[in-house]
């Protein structure tokens, strides 16, 4: 026993040079892979940029300002899709922000016992895990019919308002915005809840001790203190909504005409790409790549801002 231990020790000493090289090559391997992961972002940017070059050369800036997408004429511009992308995401934010923050409040304050809260947190996470194509399918057959009376009412009573100026035909901006809001709500809730829960508990007791009610504490002390986290989460959610494809594609109606009414069919950059790619070739395919590059640039900016805000919060 003791001799073998001694043996193995001398073995170890003999092996130490191989072991050293094994050790350093292991560290190098992890280092290379780690930089590779970071480099993927750059790689995507370069690759997507290269694929877009033919269309950029053809259309330049007018690609973003023109509004006709016309394959027979080989004329491509995506202003309606940029509009649709932004408006559907804003509708989604408008709905998801108040609901998401309310969920974060209920799930971070002591309204409910810990065990019940844990289950609810799990359910909200599950909401984020449902595949977007399933939401899309559900949107076509459940949400769109459900919204019909609401859409018709909006048009009949508020039709003078440009946003409701067309008949509700089913697929369109409104159902797309609602589906997107369901999908981004868990992001807002998760990050807002994190930043509310990470506030020091003395802040709460300090506020209660000067005679605040629970809701005065929430609105006047906790939400202002957690504000940047909530904003960061909302930006992240916006980035997700801008780039979301399948759910939007199935319910937005894929109309390439610019229409201000949220009841009318519209299109987003992502759903344009998903829809036309399989039949496209030549300049049309290049134009889809250009559209992809623009979407990538928009979401990149939004995500970088979101991450910067969230990173700052973590320091505090």
């Amino acid at each position, binding site marked *: 026993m003791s001799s073998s231990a001694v043996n193995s020790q001398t073995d170890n000493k003999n092996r130490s040079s191989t072991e050293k090289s094994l050790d350093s090559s292991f560290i190098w391997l992890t280092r290379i892979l780690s930089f590779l992961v970071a480099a993927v972002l750059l790689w995507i940017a370069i690759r997507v940029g290269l694929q877009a070059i033919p269309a950029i050369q053809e259309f330049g800036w007018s690609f973003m300002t023109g509004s006709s997408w016309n394959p027979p004429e080989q004329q491509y511009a995506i202003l309606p899709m940029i509009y649709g992308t932004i408006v559907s995401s804003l509708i989604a934010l408008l709905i998801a922000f108040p609901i998401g923050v309310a969920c974060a409040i209920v799930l971070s304050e*002591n309204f409910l*016992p*810990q065990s019940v809260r844990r289950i609810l947190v799990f359910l909200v996470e599950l909401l984020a895990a449902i595949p977007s194509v399933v939401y899309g399918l559900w949107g076509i057959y459940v949400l769109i019919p459900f919204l019909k009376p609401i859409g018709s009412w909006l048009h009949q009573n508020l039709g003078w308002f440009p946003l409701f100026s067309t008949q509700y035909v089913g697929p369109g901006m409104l159902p797309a915005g609602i589906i997107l809001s369901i999908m981004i709500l868990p992001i807002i809730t998760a990050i807002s809840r994190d930043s509310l829960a990470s506030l*020091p508990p*003395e*802040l*709460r*007791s*300090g*506020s*209660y*001790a*000067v*005679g*605040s*009610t629970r809701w*005065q504490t929430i609105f*006047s*002390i906790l939400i*202002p*203190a957690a504000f940047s986290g909530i904003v960061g989460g909302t930006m992240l959610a916006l980035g997700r909504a801008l780039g979301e494809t399948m759910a939007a594609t199935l319910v937005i109606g894929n109309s390439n005409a610019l229409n201000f009414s949220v009841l009318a069919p519209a299109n987003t950059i992502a759903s344009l790409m998903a829809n036309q790619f399989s039949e496209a070739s030549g300049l049309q395919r290049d134009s889809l790549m250009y559209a992809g590059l623009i979407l990538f640039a928009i979401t990149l900016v939004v995500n970088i801002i979101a991450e910067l805000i969230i990173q700052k919060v973590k320091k505090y």
Partner: protein
Amino acid sequence: MPTQEQQNSRSQTSQKEEMILKAEDVTVYYDDFAALRGVYMDIPRNQVTALIGPSGCGKSTLLRCFNRLNDLIDGCRVEGKVIYRDKNLYSDNIDAVEVRRRIGMVFQKPNPFPKSIYENIAYGARINGYKDNMDDLVEKSLRQAAIWDEVKDKLKQNGLSLSGGQQQRLCIARAVALKPDVVLMDEPCSSLDPVSTSKVEDLIHELKEEYTIVIVTHNMQQASRVADMTAFFNAEEGESGNRFGYLVEYDRTEDIFENPQEESTKSYVGGHFG
């Protein structure tokens, strides 16, 4: 200014000492475990009462009963009565928020709100329906907390930018701005340096004129310096191995320190004080 009537009543009660807070058989449970057991204690008006004892003896727990801050802790339950001016704070029909507006609190770690110095004072006053000149109240409260001269030129700055000692005095100003009857202090000097500590102790002496103060402290010297009355709590091993606290002895401060009746008081005070 106190009215004639109030003055009369004060002078009368000073002979038999008016009691503003009374704990009657208070037992505090965390989940199923009674962490503090059977406390009877009367707190006299306009005096400083210190709660001392080893850690885990329940002195902070008792303090938090006096303004129902224990309500915030999951699984915490209080039995017995806490009488504040003839009202039992733990009876069903009492509004805990109102209680906290009359019984202020200063915490172990300074916890100013992440707002301006001015807003730190004004926030509590505003939600309590204060309608007079806010600037006056802010100045008066900061003066009472002996911090006015240090901050008068930077009222718009964030309260968190102050030093620890200043933050704690800001928190005291925040508490007195509500004109509470009682100010509870939970080891207010434990995170402060000696200079700030002596400033806060001086402040406690002054505040006594207007307020009743109940202070939890680890520091024997501090208790003997600031307190009129002192209560000694001790902890014992409970049936499940958890430690529970109870009140051992409660008397005038000089009696507790010079002539304690109980052995455990004597050894605790002696060990820490001699």
